[in-house]
């Protein structure tokens, strides 16, 4: 009997590819979770490990196998039969074996030989790629109220560099965050580190010692997320403005599809309808825009970090090169000067000490003509 093809609409929560290996169609995160929980038994997604004997007994009972058959089956399927080397031989897993037959091994050996002959420098990005993940994966689960409840949804979110950056705009994520389904969007917003938040506005050549009393993050608090035609605005503080209203009104005036608005602090991830693998937008500071991609949505597993307090969890951070002082090339630059008669280039970067030595006398008076701005380096979050 020919089955009728069920076309899942956006409400069913079963994600399907919109474009294969690129992104999915939109689906509701909460419904996705419910679909999975409906299909699994509670033991399947709990964090406790079942007892092996109980499992075998249940299996034998269900299939109607006798004890002998069960024992035979167990020994036939045991992983000991997969061992490729004699039991007492201790093999190091770090070396490629000699005379490899598998294509993967041949290629790996070739790559190793090439790498050793060319003396390629270690790539710091790859080296530290899993550093953060190693810290948290497999942590013993917490007990008590801090523990993530079973059946909770985990989202992996990639945040990319701001659109104004020349490099790595859409390829390398600036950071990867893990969020639970019950987190609100404001928690995601707070977890995103962008150096434009730390920028200080203002010219400080005359008063270099005055600590700036505000940073941009405190000054410009408005931000929004854009998911599937809805702008989620941050309205927690009285200074926050709705910066998405301009876009919404422009769209209305220009025959674009209608966009709607909602509050960031009231929306949790389980309420969202999103596409996995599709780029969305996060805008803060009025003009600093980041692309956000949700790369995966899944149920929690016992090897994940189960401590609620650690989420949002950072699993990957891009390590940017830091700009060093133009004079000493040792310290990271803190000052940015323009129209500087002492500087070799315009604009020029200085660390704190070199800046003061060069531009101010022993009493702290300004020497010469220049404009100085406090500079926050991109690598501040490394």
């Amino acid at each position: 009997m020919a089955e009728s093809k069920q076309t899942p609409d956006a409400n069913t929560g079963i994600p399907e590819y919109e474009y294969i290996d690129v992104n999915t169609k939109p689906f509701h995160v909460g419904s996705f979770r419910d679909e999975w929980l409906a299909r699994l038994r509670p033991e399947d997604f709990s964090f406790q490990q079942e007892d092996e004997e109980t499992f075998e007994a249940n299996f034998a009972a269900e299939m109607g196998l006798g004890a002998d058959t069960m024992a035979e089956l167990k020994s036939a399927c045991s992983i000991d039969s997969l061992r490729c080397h004699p039991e007492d031989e201790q093999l190091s897993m770090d070396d490629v074996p000699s005379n490899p037959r598998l294509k993967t091994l041949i290629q790996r050996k070739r790559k190793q030989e090439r790498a050793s002959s060319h003396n390629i420098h270690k790539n710091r990005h790859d080296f530290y790629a899993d550093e953060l993940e190693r810290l948290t994966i497999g942590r013993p689960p917490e007990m008590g109220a801090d523990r993530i409840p079973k059946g909770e949804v985990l989202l992996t979110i990639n945040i990319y560099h701001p659109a104004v950056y020349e490099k790595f705009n859409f390829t390398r994520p600036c950071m990867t965050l893990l969020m639970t389904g019950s987190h609100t969007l404001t928690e995601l917003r707070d977890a995103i580190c962008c150096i434009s938040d730390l920028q200080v506005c203002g010219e400080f050549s005359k008063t270099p010692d005055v600590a700036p009393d505000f940073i941009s993050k405190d000054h410009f608090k408005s931000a929004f997320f854009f998911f599937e035609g809805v702008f989620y605005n941050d309205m927690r503080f009285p200074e926050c403005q709705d910066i998405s209203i301009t876009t919404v009104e422009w769209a209305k005036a220009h025959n674009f599809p209608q966009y709607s608005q909602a509050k960031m602090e009231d929306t949790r991830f389980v309420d969202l309808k999103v596409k996995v693998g599709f780029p969305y937008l996060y805008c803060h500071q009025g003009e600093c825009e980041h692309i956000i991609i949700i790369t995966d949505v899944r149920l929690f597993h016992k090897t994940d970090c189960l401590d609620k307090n650690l989420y949002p969890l950072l699993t990957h951070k891009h390590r940017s090169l830091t700009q060093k002082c133009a004079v000493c090339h040792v310290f990271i630059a803190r000052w940015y000067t323009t129209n500087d008669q002492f500087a070799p280039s315009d604009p020029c970067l200085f660390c704190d000490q070199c800046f003061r030595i060069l531009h101010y006398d022993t009493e702290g008076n300004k020497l010469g003509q220049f404009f100085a701005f406090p500079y926050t380096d991109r690598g501040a979050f490394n």
Partner: protein
Amino acid sequence: MDASHKHVKADCEALLARFQQTQSVRFEVFANIWREMKFSQIFRGVVKHEKRAFCHLVLNTAYCYFLPPFSFQIRVGGLYLLYSLYYTQTASPSEQIHLALKDWEEVKKFENNAIDAQHMDAVYILRHLMFCKAFRFTAMPTLLCFQTNKVKERSVLREEFIERASRPQELISSGLLEEMSNVSDLYENMKASVLSQMTTPGDSSFNLIRKDLVSQLSGTVQEFYNWQREKETFDENENSQEDTSQKVCSNRAELLASIKSKAFGEAPETLKSRRHRRVEMNSTTEASAALLNQGYTRILKQSLRKRTRDALLLSGDVQMESASHTRISLLATLDSASKKILKEERS
């Protein structure tokens, strides 16, 4: 990491091809092949910080063989492969297998097929993986990052692994044919009774259906089935002796199939879980050798380079020179000296 994806896929396919040749779905057979190929060495030599990513890649590659459109035997092989890779991986704690929500139904269907055919080792292994929480229940099998600019080589699924198309046989079942013949008789009778009362009975506009539709349909399906069977070369001994060690399972399954087929003389379609058993194993080498020779005749298309070369029909020295790099230094040397250099290189 992308380069190794191709090689990992090639290695998995090599393993599964050998498994397919054995015409068996037993785990011991799979383990033999695994040991022979020393497949757990695939994890050796991975740099520490790449271990997890590599294990993820390997498990993902193996996962696609567990799902349709591959044949039942290949899917069982894929399951065994996942099981073996999961337990021999070097990442600690272990990297999980990503199981997508859309594939859950297929997995359940597979499990039910295996239970019906009494392939206990496959069911046990699947349940064991669930018990050990080897699966992560995700939205999609891979992490999606909206990579449209990457050149996607459309992964060509190996034809030998794909399930033989059986929809025509399943659709046109005996029950359906019987019903259709009943309806068509009823229609004919009604038409005849109505026509006899009309003034112009001979009008051809009343002939709206095909005559003998039912027999034509069943004949066509039978033809299709026979053509399929001829295409896959195998020994037509399906009703002969059975392998003693598989007695119970195969007897029961064959019995079911024969009952269904004997009833209405339709194309005997074996259960999906039995279809890999083309040749009855008498555990002789001649049978398996014969099968290997007939085997799968895969049409290999020559590379564009080779085809161009053959088409242009270059000869002798010109062909040799065109195949190698141009040596600019030879432009300035004497003919005799350059010939010497070329000769040295050729030897």
